[in-house]
């Protein structure tokens, strides 16, 4: 695959992940106990034998850059392989913030031109899937395509969330709609995985850069124009693929780690991560003391469990104290659930602490209201607690609640937080 370079779009904020992506880019959001979201695409690149990769960053890149490092964790160590982080830059003639996904690639055409490659793979850094890109590239070559787009059928009622494309028997794309509000032409969704003939991509990007009406986005601007004019092909990818763009889908995909038969098989996928930028106490076996009950759960490295853990994903260094119960929850690195506390349907960011005998996510009514501030983000009964926040003892927090990061117990009202409520650290 030395004729291919991979360009990974990792600059997005992922605003629908709310406070999880407030401090970090979406691809750097922790996932599946041991990983960050971008590990999946980087491991795919590694296992596909692609020797060159550029990672385009923009939004809060620090966690991401620290995590990617030199790319060594994904085998980018020899002189024949290159992984570079490509932040926005300014120069004498050009350079600005990346205006869109296409603009980000366009501004880095000079990076691509350093390599003797025929094909450019454009990927998103925020999807969970396991794919060998060689199959896609082979398909692309066989059809002498200008661009090949990986697709997957989605339920018809969800087509409005995706770009959908219609193709003929040979795979040639005949029609494309970006997020159709009504009358979708197909339920084959664009997965945001593209392989372009390099000269074709360069030409189209330069053209698009000159177009003042364009938002410089692949899905919105470039792909619709290409369809019909150029040799565009669809490559159906039928295995597990998730865009974990919302809190609900993020929680669900985490839970899917518990059922390898459902398609997400962390062990079989051989996902690699950079563990060297994590503290060494996160690299310990998990210790179960006494008669801790653990049912259908991942218990992260260096975690200690003295209570009950049911249907949950514990990240590294999580502490579940005696008499505590964790149910249907995603608890990130260093979270502590103090003795006697009960949590369910909770997403807790790093180092959050649930106080002694506190109760989080317990239903008070049959139909808990969506979050009053962000009904679009939190309506399915999850509760989100930001990093480093500590809840007080004996505190009750309902469903669809949003608790911001860095809050101490004194920030909580004495009566607790009923469903749909928020506690903010922003003034006002």
């Amino acid at each position, binding site marked *: 695959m030395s004729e291919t370079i991979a360009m990974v779009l990792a600059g997005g904020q992922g605003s629908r992940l709310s406070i999880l992506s407030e401090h970090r880019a979406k691809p750097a959001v922790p996932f599946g106990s041991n990983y960050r979201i971008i590990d999946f695409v980087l491991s795919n690149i590694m296992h596909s034998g692609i020797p060159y990769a550029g990672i385009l960053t923009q939004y809060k890149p620090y966690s991401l850059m620290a995590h990617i490092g030199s790319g060594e964790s994904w085998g980018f160590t020899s002189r024949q392989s290159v992984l570079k982080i490509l932040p926005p830059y300014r120069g004498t003639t050009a350079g600005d913030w990346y205006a869109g996904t296409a603009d980000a690639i366009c501004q880095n055409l000079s990076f691509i031109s350093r390599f003797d490659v025929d094909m450019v793979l454009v990927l998103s850094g925020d999807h969970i899937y396991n794919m060998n890109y060689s199959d896609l590239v082979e398909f692309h070559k066989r059809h002498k395509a200008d661009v090949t787009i990986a697709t997957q059928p989605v339920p018809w009622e969800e087509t409005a969330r995706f770009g959908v494309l219609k193709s003929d028997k040979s795979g040639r794309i005949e029609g494309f709609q970006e997020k159709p509000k009504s009358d979708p032409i197909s339920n084959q969704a664009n997965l945001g995985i593209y392989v372009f003939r390099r000269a074709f991509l360069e030409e189209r990007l330069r053209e698009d850069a000159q177009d003042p009406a364009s938002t410089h986005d692949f899905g919105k601007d470039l792909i619709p124009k290409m369809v019909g004019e150029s040799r565009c092909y669809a490559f159906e990818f039928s295995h597990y693929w998730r865009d974990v763009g919302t809190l609900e889908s993020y929680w669900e995909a985490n839970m899917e780690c518990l059922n390898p038969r459902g398609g997400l098989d962390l062990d079989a996928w051989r996902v690699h991560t950079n563990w060297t930028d994590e503290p060494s106490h996160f690299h310990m076996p998990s210790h179960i003391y006494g008669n801790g009950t653990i049912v259908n759960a991942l218990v992260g*490295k260096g975690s200690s469990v003295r209570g009950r853990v049911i249907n949950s994903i514990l990240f590294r260094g999580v502490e579940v104290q005696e008499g505590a119960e964790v149910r249907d929850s995603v608890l990130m690195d260093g979270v502590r659930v103090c003795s006697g506390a009960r949590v369910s349907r909770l997403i807790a960011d790093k180092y959050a602490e649930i106080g002694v005998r506190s109760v989080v996510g317990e239903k008070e009514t049959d139909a808990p209201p969506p979050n009053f501030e962000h009904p679009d983000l939190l309506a399915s009964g999850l509760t989100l607690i930001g990093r480093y926040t500590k809840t007080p003892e004996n505190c009750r927090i309902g469903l669809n609640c949003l608790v911001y990061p860095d809050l101490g117990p004194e920030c909580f009202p004495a009566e607790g937080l009923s469903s749909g409520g928020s506690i903010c650290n922003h003034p006002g």
Partner: protein
Amino acid sequence: MRNTVALVLAGGVNVGYSVLTHNRAKSALPFFGHFRLVDFVLTNLSRSGVNNVGVMIQYLPGSLIDHIGIGRAWDFDSTNRRIKLMPPFVGMGRTDWYRGSADAIYRNMDFIQNNQAHDVLVVCADHVYCMDYRPMLNLHRERGADVTIMTTPRPQGTDPRHYGYVTVGDRGRVVDFVEKPSQPPEHDVVSTGVYLFRADLLCDRLYDMQRMSSDHHLPTVVVEPIVREGRAFACPFEGDWHYLPDIESYVAFHQRLLRGESTISPDHDSVLTDLRDRDLGSRPAPYFGPLSEVEDSLVSPGCVVEGKVVRSVLSPGVHVAPKAVVRDSILFHDCFVGQGARLEGVVSDKDVRFDSFCRVGAPLPDPANVRAGQLTVVGKSARIMQGVVIEVGREVPIRQVVTREWDWNMPGSIARL
């Protein structure tokens, strides 16, 4: 620790671990999940800021060489720090093996001299303790000592003949030192095997040994004479220190760690180890199935627990199938325990397959106090076929396939412990 080099003694012959050390040095033995015994000493040296470390290897060094590599896990791979593996070699008129610890140091004396070391720290590779050597060095220099011996009270319940006894007089001065006496003295202050030597004096003693002595054992040929003729001091170690001479003590110590009864805790002390081995760093978190039952156990990354695990240590990648029971056992990397299998008091090396419904070993009467004959040991990559029953106290050789028809009395095939 400027002007100090450390030498790690890792070349000695091992007995007491049966089939587990038939293909590896004891210091390379897996420990508490994904660690190895040598990790304690290497972590101590790294955290104490020792910049030049030599490791004497001779006996079955393969695993140890793989594990230490360029010392990256312990930050010994930087421009001003290094770790050097020192195997025996021919040349300079010698064609023989290291004859003992002192001989090994003698033959690598240029490491001490080239680094212009003022002091030499000598440690054993297979002792378990967490310690910063810097206060010991400060004491050593303040006192102008020729040798400083780190001492500890003799660990309870261990064979008194295994230790070197240190008689301490006024202000920490060592007045008598006797290594592994047949008649141990009344007191119980013993050497931890951690010695700090003045470099020039150590070298002089080694030259003398080379000319005059047939003994090549560091405590007797170097330490004892210095105690008699020079300035020897003791430096008591306040923490928990362990020497695990045999597999029984190894299992009993794991049981203490499981219950959190030792002040040593590899997790809280953040002992460093090589996570590149078998891709340990990227393995997924352990998964506990809907029917799993786990009690007082340590479960490593990559494990899948669907059955019952009690008072046991699972190294990375161990799979315990539904209805299987693992009790009072230690299973090394990537073992598979099939449905309905029962393992009790078992220590199994890596990559062993226990097929369904096999039964191996018997429960430990007292897990904190394990006696000879109570453990069942399985060698690396062995396979125990479906329904096979292996009695307590047996030892399955490396790569052995054990079928139901297996003749346990066939000489040389499967030995009793």
